[in-house]
């Protein structure tokens, strides 16, 4: 491993930390422009029906109300909220600004625009909506069984996908194991609610301030919907308080843009917590059944899976999700034959879509719970079974045909098992007392960008200022995990200056070059590689300018600490600011570069996680008493942030395994309206998470780095479920393991409540 790096591998705070600890940073929810109006949505109160009549007269009579926009007085052009670039047609255009055919409790019916938030709220309560109710399809089974009731006219199955790879070998004497796992609909629960501001200018143009994760696609959706030329729509990424995928899709941006254009003003739409939970998007509920055949000593021969996702009321990105869930298992395990059928089913429930891990946590839950069943059937230790089947570095992914790159999942498992003292803990009996301890392990994989599925590239430019500092111009979308800092550290390493000498901002379609945005685990691997390539080009210019002045060959020169230096004479150096002086006066080409970087690979990132739990068999409450996350990260650019991201990701995974679920009742209502009844793990219940990094620097990321943010939460849920099953001797496979499920499993095993959301 390369050890002579000056900045890469250090620990840095997020670039705007000073503004965050002083409360100075203006987030989207803090943002305002003079004369700004406020919007409030009116949402459907029923899960399925047709809006027959809207009476907004009392609302519009309130002083300060500008207008009430409804499905009857607004365009009904369709758009798709899940967009990456123009022309992409994986997800249907099935959504309108306001719905006449309402499809879930939370569907947008109208919006009030008023001079103050309080007025908008008061007016929204005065809007009367009459519906003709239609029978709702509240579960996937109901939707699949229904021929005549359709969520969308195209049918209730939004998408179907199948993979069938490899050759099924002879299964004579094989041990067959089956399992069925369900995962719940969950809320991303970023602390900042969804918000967007747009301003319609009298030039006919528009500015949009968004917290979404991709400004260019936001522009595409808005411009196409409102029939505007792209150069008239400016979309700016403003600071946001977390997303985790919940702000990837363009849910409120089109609405706010429309309101801004219609009113020729600035309009701000800030959702409250309940609206965020039910009217934006959620991680879709899934169920997956798996059937494997393996040899009696544990070698996988055949892996068959079937997945059904609850897409909710609009297809959103669930078609892509369906495809991606079929691409997870073979990143981790070698198997001769892999078959997977998946489908996304529409229901009259909150919309499912992008969430951290993009199907990997859902599929890892099913796979890793299944692997423990296999281990039990074969009387093998769970670690031992996995070691018999894991991929090796530079294997090819059976499903995608892409190289997995320097895949170190096996090493993660081996080193983690030692660090966690797995064998000893596993050998300890759980006992039959009130409090029972168990340990569990799970492995997972995720990708590094979209190479292989989309044309994957990034564009950036970098220039040097007259004083030897630098400015990076890139469409960065900071979501809180230190993206801007990562780019600065990469550029700093190449140019031999401290990261604080580099300025970098966030995306603005008017000024920063095209980049898809922060999703798909592409930022470190692809955007970061672009940053490195751009910095390298600038470095070449610095070296060339110095070579010319010093009359030396470029090969005799190197950069360090803000100057170009001579290898064989450490007395000689020319500081960057003096190179800049030359540039001003002597026609030296400006020290700047623009680069378009095209990804050349898409390896897998891995994590293996170990959990120890203690279950209170009297109350059904489970405590996570110890946790180790092992991470194959290639190379940590910002070591402290990698560890911190893993700690946060485990918090999310614990919630997934034990607490969080957004179900709807028989009237299609969620009954969950905020954090009071939707519990995310708080400080007293959070264990200290140990993080162990495996760094082999293979692959094409900057300095060998691979993705971190999504993989970190992939195996957490099943590690905990497996630990609970170890503690109790149960085979629970319906997440979350709320106390009711645990108590029922202990006392009435035949009556364990199933997941009600799919």
């Amino acid at each position, binding site marked *: 491993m390369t050890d002579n790096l000056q900045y890469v591998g250090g620990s840095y705070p997020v670039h705007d930390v000073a503004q965050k600890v002083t409360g100075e940073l203006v987030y989207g929810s803090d943002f305002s422009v003079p004369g700004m109006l406020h919007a409030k949505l009116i949402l459907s109160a029923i899960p399925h029906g047709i809006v027959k009549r809207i009476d907004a007269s009392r609302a519009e009579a309130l002083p300060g109300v500008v207008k009430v926009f409804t499905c009857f007085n607004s365009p009904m052009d369709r758009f798709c909220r899940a967009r990456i670039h123009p022309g992409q047609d994986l997800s249907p255009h099935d959504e309108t600004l306001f719905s006449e055919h309402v499809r879930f409790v939370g569907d947008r019916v109208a919006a009030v625009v008023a001079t103050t938030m309080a007025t908008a*709220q*008061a007016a*929204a*309560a*005065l809007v009367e909506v009459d519906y003709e109710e239609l029978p709702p399809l509240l579960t996937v089974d109901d939707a699949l069984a229904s021929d005549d009731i359709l969520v969308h006219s195209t049918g209730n199955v939004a998408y179907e996908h199948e993979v069938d790879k490899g050759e099924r070998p002879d299964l004579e004497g094989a041990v067959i194991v089956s399992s069925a796992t369900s995962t719940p609909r969950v809320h991303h629960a970023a602390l900042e609610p969804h918000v967007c501001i747009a301003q319609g200018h009298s030039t006919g143009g528009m500015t949009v301030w968004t917290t979404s994760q991709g400004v260019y696609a936001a522009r595409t959706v808005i411009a196409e919907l409102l029939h505007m030329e792209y150069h008239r729509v400016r979309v700016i990424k403003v600071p946001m308080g977390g997303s985790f995928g919940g702000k990837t899709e363009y849910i409120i941006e089109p609405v706010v843009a429309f309101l801004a254009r219609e009113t020729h003003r600035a309009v701000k739409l800030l959702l409250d917590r309940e609206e965020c939970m039910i009217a934006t998007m959620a991680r879709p509920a899934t169920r997956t059944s798996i059937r494997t055949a393996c040899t009696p000593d544990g070698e996988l021969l055949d892996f068959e899976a079937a997945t059904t996702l609850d897409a909710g009321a609009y297809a959103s990105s669930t078609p892509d999700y369906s495809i991606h869930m079929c691409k997870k298992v073979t990143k981790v395990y070698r198997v001769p034959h892999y078959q997977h059928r998946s489908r996304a089913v529409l229901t009259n429930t909150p919309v499912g879509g992008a969430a951290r891990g993009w199907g990997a946590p859902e599929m890892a839950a099913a796979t890793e719970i299944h692997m423990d069943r296999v281990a039990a059937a074969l009387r093998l230790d769970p670690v031992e079974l996995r070691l018999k089947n894991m991929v090796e570095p530079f294997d090819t992914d059976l499903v995608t045909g892409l190289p997995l790159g320097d895949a170190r999942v096996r090493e993660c498992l081996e080193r983690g098992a030692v660090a966690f003292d797995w064998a000893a803990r596993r050998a300890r009996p759980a006992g*039959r*007392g*009130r409090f029972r301890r168990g340990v569990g392990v799970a492995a997972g994989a995720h990708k590094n960008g979209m190479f292989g599925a989309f044309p994957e590239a990034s564009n950036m430019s970098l220039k040097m200022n007259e004083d030897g500092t630098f400015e990076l111009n890139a469409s960065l979308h900071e979501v809180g995990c230190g993206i801007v800092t990562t780019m600065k550290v990469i550029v700093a390493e190449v140019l031999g200056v401290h990261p604080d000498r580099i300025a970098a901002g966030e995306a603005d379609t008017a000024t920063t070059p095209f980049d898809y945005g922060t999703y798909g685990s592409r930022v470190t691997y692809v955007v970061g590689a672009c940053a490195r390539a751009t910095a390298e080009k600038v470095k070449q210019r610095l070296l060339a300018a110095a070579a010319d002045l010093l009359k030396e060959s470029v090969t005799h020169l190197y950069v360090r600490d803000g100057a170009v230096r001579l290898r064989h004479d450490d007395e000689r150096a020319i500081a960057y600011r003096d190179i800049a002086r030359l540039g001003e006066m002597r026609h030296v080409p400006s020290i700047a570069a623009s680069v378009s970087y095209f990804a050349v690979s898409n390896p897998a990132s891995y994590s293996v996680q170990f959990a120890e739990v203690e279950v*209170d*068999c*009297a*109350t*059904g*409450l489970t*405590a996570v008493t110890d946790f180790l996350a092992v991470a194959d990260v290639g190379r940590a650019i910002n070591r402290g942030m990698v560890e911190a991201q893993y700690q946060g990701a485990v918090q999310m995974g614990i919630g997934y395994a034990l*607490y969080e679920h957004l179900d709807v009742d028989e009237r299609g209502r969620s009954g969950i309206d905020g954090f*009071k009844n939707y*519990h995310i*793990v*708080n400080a*007293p*219940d959070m264990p200290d998470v140990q993080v162990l990094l495996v760094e082999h620097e293979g692959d094409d990321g900057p300095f060998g780095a691979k993705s971190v943010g999504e993989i970190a939460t992939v195996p957490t849920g099943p590690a905990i479920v497996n630990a609970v099953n170890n503690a109790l001797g149960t085979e629970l496979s319906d997440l979350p393991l*709320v*106390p*009711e499920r645990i*108590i*029922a499993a*202990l*006392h*009435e095993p035949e*009556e364990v409540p199933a997941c009600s959301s799919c």
Partner: protein
Amino acid sequence: MTEIVTPEAIDELVAALAEATPRTRLLAGGTDLVRAIRQPGTEPDVIIDLTGLAELSYVRLDGETLRIGATTTFAELQGDSLVREHALCLGLAAAQVGSAQIRNIGTIGGNIANASPCADSATALTALGAALTTVDGAGSVNTRPIAEVLLGPNRTSLAHNEAITEFSFAALGPEHRSAFAKIGSRTAVSVARLSAALVVRFDAAAGTLADVRVALGAVGGAAFRAAALERALEGRPADEESARLFAEGCVAAVQDSIPGRYSLPYKQHAAVGLAYDAWNGLALISPPCEPAWS
């Protein structure tokens, strides 16, 4: 527009109550009220702001009676030495209400007036046999047992022009032990799914229990005393068998209070854990008792 009235003495409070209508609200900590009045259409005509009434915030030992002012906060109860000595189960309950932020401003009077069936303080006060003193717009002062005030989920017998001023009960003495247990959805900051408060007078010489009081909360419409269970434990030795009977009795009481309810299968089992937590909280026997597992 809502009018805010901030009385600074009891007579001013009475005067404000005299003007109260059914749309008038009393403001103590505000943690329940502020949310309730922000829905469009729920604006009160008058808010009587009790935070100016310092004289309603106190904990006093008055002979054998412990008196607690209605605007005493949970943080104050949690840290109060008189509460710790003479009403431990109430102090323990107070420590588990919400988060530190909520405890710093939420009041016992506000909590009881809101009458959530899951209110931790209600369970403890019920076990302590607390009485509530109120004052109304006519200046009448009334004292009645808590069971006559808490009628059901978010329902009290308080009139719209009536304010709680004080909670009072016989102070527990040196021979008393009390405990509070709660089962939520997580360790901290959770509404109770089950709660129990247990008070006994322990005769150390004879090793027996007397003056047994068992209150259960978060099952049924309001906290209640499990009278049959109290009688069954009266005079019993402080031993494992009594712990087992206590647990059985709690389960039976839970089953009787929420028959057919969706949560019954869970709660009747979890009640065993609740019971043992409460029993062990009395610290009568060492080591703590464990339920027998099959």
